[in-house]
C-alpha cells in the first residue's frame, strides 16, 4: 500500500499535461489515473508527496484552478480515505 499522498484531479487532459510540464522539473510528481473514489475529472491526476504540498501551492499560485480538485489520500488499514483540501 502506498503511503499517504496528495493528488490534483483535472477536468481537462490538456490542463493535466500543462501542470505536469510546469511541475516536473522541480517536484517528484507522477501522472496517474484519477482514483475511482474521485469523480468529475478527465481521468488524470498528478500525484505527489504530502511534504511537497506547500511548495507546490506556492509554485501554482498564478494558475487558474477552476475545476481542479485538490485531494489528500490517506491509506488506512481499513481502506482509503479521500480528504478534499481547499486551494489557497
Amino acid at each position: 500500500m502506498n503511503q499517504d499522498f496528495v493528488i490534483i484531479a483535472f477536468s481537462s487532459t490538456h490542463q493535466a499535461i500543462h501542470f505536469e510540464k510546469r511541475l516536473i522539473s522541480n517536484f517528484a510528481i507522477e501522472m496517474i489515473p484519477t482514483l475511482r473514489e474521485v469523480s468529475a475529472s478527465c481521468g488524470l491526476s498528478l500525484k505527489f508527496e504530502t511534504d511537497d504540498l506547500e511548495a507546490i501551492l506556492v509554485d501554482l499560485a498564478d494558475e487558474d484552478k477552476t475545476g481542479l480538485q485538490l485531494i489528500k489520500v490517506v491509506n488506512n488499514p481499513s481502506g482509503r480515505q479521500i480528504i478534499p483540501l481547499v486551494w489557497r
Partner: protein
Amino acid sequence: MEVKIDARGLACPKPVIETKKALEGINEGNIITIVDNNAAKENVSRLAKSLKLHYCVSEVDGNFEISIFKGAYAQSSEETVQKRPDLANLVIFVGKDTLGEGSRELGEILIKSYFYSLTESEPYPKAIIFVNSGVKLTTLQPQVIDHLKKLTEFGTEVHSCGTCLDYYGVKEMLQVGVVSNMYTIVELMNEANNTITL
C-alpha cells in the same frame, strides 16, 4: 543416461534449441547444457521450467552448467512456485511504448496510467511481454519500471524481447525482468488462458 551439450559460443536461441532436441531424444536422464552467458543460462532454465522439469544451475570457470532431469528424475517445479489461487493465467503483450493510436504525448501518459492501475488490480497477470518499441518501457521509462518491479514482487514475470532490446541499443539498460527469445514468448502466449495485446 547423461548427455552434455557444449553450447558455448552459440548465438541465441541455439542453446535452447539444442537442449530441447536433446530432451526430446531421451525418455529419462540428465541433460547438461554448458553456456557462456547469462541470457543463455536464463533461457535454458526457462525451457526446463516451462517443461515442468527439475533443473539446477552451477557456475564453473565462468561458464554456466544447467542440469535438467527428465523421466524418473523429474519433479514438478510448479509445486515449488508459490501461486495465488486467484491468479489467472493471464499474459499481457506490449508491442509499443505508448497506449493506443494518435497523439504520442497522450499515449505516453496512458501507458504509464495503465501500469499504475495494473499494480492496483488483482489478480495480477502471470506474465507481461514487451516487444518492439515496448522494450523502451522496461529500459528507459522510470515510472513504468517502478510499477513493473512492484508487479514482479507479486509474482508477475516480466519478459523483454532480446532481439528488440538489441535493435534499439538498450540491451544494457534493462531495469526489470528478464531477456527472452521468441520461443519463450510463443510458449507463454500459447499456455495462457488469455492474452491481452496492448
